């Protein structure tokens, strides 16, 4: 299966800018489906970015993050070609992980 995580990490030499798009329903647990039954909450709780063995960015999310979440941040201390590892865990215990090369 293709990864749920899409990343673009670009370095300008000093600063690495990371843009991430994740495929996830991010159900709040408050919305009803077509049959009028509540869709149970299903959302990503934790999203981590690690580079060179160190966490560079950690997101804790609630249900108010939009479906198919997007997040952008930048960090220092990495260079082109370094690996950036992205992993998430949701409230049902599911998780996914991917590694991207910094371009």
């Amino acid at each position, binding site marked *: 299966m293709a990864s749920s995580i899409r990343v673009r990490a670009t370095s300008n030499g000093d*600063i690495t800018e990371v843009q991430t798009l994740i495929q996830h329903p*991010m159900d*709040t647990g*408050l*919305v009803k489906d077509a049959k009028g039954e509540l869709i149970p909450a299903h959302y990503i*709780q*934790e999203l981590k970015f690690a580079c060179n063995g*160190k*966490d*560079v*960015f*950690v*997101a*804790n*999310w*609630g*249900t*108010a*993050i*939009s*479906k198919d*979440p*997007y*997040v*952008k*941040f*930048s*960090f*220092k*201390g990495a260079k082109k070609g370094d690996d950036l590892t992205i992993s998430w865990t949701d409230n049902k215990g599911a998780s996914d992980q991917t590694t991207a090369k910094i371009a």
Partner: protein
Amino acid sequence: MTVHTGPHPTRRLILQGAVSVALIGLGNLPFVPAHAAANDKYPEEAFKLKNEADAIKALYGRTAEPSDKVKLDAPEIAENGGVVPMSVTTTLDKVSSISFFVAENPNALAASYKFPDGTIPAVANRLKMAKTSNVTAIVEADGKLYSATKEVKVTVGGCGG
């Protein structure tokens, strides 16, 4: 033969007494909130709280002061409450976390981001908004809390699907 359906009345009274004493004892314990921003654990409790002030307290354990060094960039009017792009930037030093609160959402805390050393204190994301509401960004810098608030008008709520 007599059937005893329950404990002796006096014993029951004593047990009830013991239970209420225990409950009162619990009530007197000082409330120790888990300061999630300070450690690595997911702040489950803070995300469950409805009220913005309660959620800030549960997450950070103190209140924030408004600061013009925190810049919250969010639209004046959001046509679709399901996807409201917003971002925070700050000129403050030693930033360790940035959090987003939407006052009128069912649960005020939307997201909390941690910034280790070397990460630029800025983040962009997309939030759901149930209705028109104040959005507050809180920046934790050098152990202090700074905030910026902006009202975002929502024409279609984020909870209708």
